[in-house]
């Protein structure tokens, strides 16, 4: 296993130490493994709390800061945080105006956040939750755990964070969060597996001439394994199911192309060069683009594409100032 690591059991604690050393604008609660803004929540501001398994950096801890999250609970690698962690985050950032939990749709995340919300409510904190389930690779059915939550989470945290920063109340913040969540679709492709440090070897073996289409951000195998294709063909494998899933003309949209951790930017750009014309052809009017490693899967080579249908309000909030370790502009 070729990683910058000491004892694999210490990965999370030690990564948090690095985050604290690098970013004076955030505060790491090492005991609870929670990343918070250095400044307490402004009175009256609704707080945004997210979290999930680690290994997806900069998500979520890297999105804590002005205009985005107030706190993020960091679980072990690929393991949802515990209710205690989420509760600690929630209590730490509630200014009295309530807290929005932003949850990605995985059984573990949903259950742990649910328990935390119950505990927080018992302590008198108003909590609303939004569950992101945007991965079109997964058949959405009442017979399954439903779609995974992926890239839409990043866009949601930015847009809804801006609204909370403006002083909107919890109901309005939660309502917008649900709108953004409903407006997003994602699709990922892996060229290699990732290696979970504690497991010590790749989660799956991919022959040199194959790739996983519809892979999850935890190295869950995808829906199909196919021959390694050109960037041009891969772009189609990503764009088509998203556009098809929208069903209706998309119109103005915010697009995120995220590397999965082991794919360098030059390849992401090359891939986006193939994606952009396909989106245009399909009637997606790309208003804003984010390219880079925003939601990763440890060292996996691959990329995920997210398209969020965006109205004027969302675009305005997207453009509002943000100052976090992972996303920053206007401040």
């Amino acid at each position: 296993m070729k990683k910058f690591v000491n004892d694999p059991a210490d990965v999370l604690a030690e990564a948090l130490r690095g985050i604290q050393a690098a970013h004076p604008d955030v505060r790491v609660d090492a005991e609870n493994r929670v990343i918070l803004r250095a400044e307490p929540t402004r009175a009256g501001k609704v707080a945004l709390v997210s979290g999930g398994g680690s290994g997806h950096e900069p998500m979520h801890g890297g999105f804590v800061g002005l205009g985005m999250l107030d706190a993020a609970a960091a679980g072990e690698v690929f393991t949802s945080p515990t209710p205690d962690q989420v509760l600690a985050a929630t209590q730490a950032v509630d200014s009295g105006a309530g807290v929005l939990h932003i949850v990605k749709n995985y059984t573990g995340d949903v259950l742990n956040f649910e328990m935390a919300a119950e505990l927080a409510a018992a302590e008198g904190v108003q909590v609303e939750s939004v569950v992101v389930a945007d991965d079109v690779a997964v058949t959405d059915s009442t017979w399954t755990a439903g779609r995974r939550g992926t890239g839409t989470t990043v866009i949601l945290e930015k847009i809804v964070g801006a609204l909370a920063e403006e002083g909107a109340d919890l109901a309005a913040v939660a309502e917008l969060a649900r709108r953004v969540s409903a407006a997003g679709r994602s699709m990922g492709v892996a060229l290699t597996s990732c290696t979970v440090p504690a497991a010590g070897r790749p989660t799956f073996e991919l022959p040199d001439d194959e790739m996983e289409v519809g892979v999850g951000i935890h190295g869950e195998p995808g829906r199909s394994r196919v021959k390694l294709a050109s960037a041009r063909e891969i772009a189609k494998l990503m764009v088509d199911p998203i556009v098809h899933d929208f069903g209706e003309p998309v119109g103005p949209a915010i697009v995120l192309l995220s590397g999965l951790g082991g794919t360098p930017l030059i390849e992401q750009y090359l891939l986006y060069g193939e994606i952009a014309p396909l989106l245009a052809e399909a009637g997606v009017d790309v208003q804003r683009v984010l390219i880079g490693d925003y939601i990763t899967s440890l060292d996996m080579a691959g990329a995920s594409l997210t398209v969020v249908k965006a109205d004027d309000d969302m675009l305005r909030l997207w453009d509002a100032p943000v100052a976090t370790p992972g996303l920053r502009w206007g401040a």
Partner: protein
Amino acid sequence: MTGAVSTDDLVAWVRAFRDAVHAHKDELTRLDSEIGDADHGSNMARGLDAVVAELDPAPASPSDLFKTVGMTLVSSVGGASGPLYGTLFLRMGPALGTETEVDAEGLGAALRAGVEGVVARGKAEPGDKTMIDALSPALDAWDAAAAAGPAEAARAAAEAAARGRDATEPLVARKGRASYLGERSAGHLDPGATSATLLLEALRDTLAGAA
């Protein structure tokens, strides 16, 4: 032993479960690599290490023990298995009152309350390819054998759990992370059903040893 199970026996069970999880940690992670995200072994091992650290001094009663185990699992495991195994133990306690010993029927009722809690949390049904596929038949086997005493009930339950675990192999997952795989989830044992079988086998071994 045909009669009562003591608090010490149950503490020994929890310790034996911890040892079994450590012995099978890599296997659990390997199973979770095939249809999940390669963390079930380390999740369970981390949780049970935390649990064992809470067992000194030993809890005063089975219900205290189960409360401690459940709360510790909830707050140290995370993932899907944390809240689910945590709920299993948290719900077992109240069924037992403050007794310091429990008989086969009582332990069976506690297990049933625990498993019902897991179902209430996770909404899985038998056949969904989850830990329920090991736990649910184990309960029925326990009840059928309870009259023969706890050691025999545990033996029957462990056997039923193992059968239930094995039966997950051909199934298409409908709950948890493996469900994302659709048809590709068939052909692999469910990791949670495998760890749940370890739980019942640890009980069998503990009660057999105590007999």
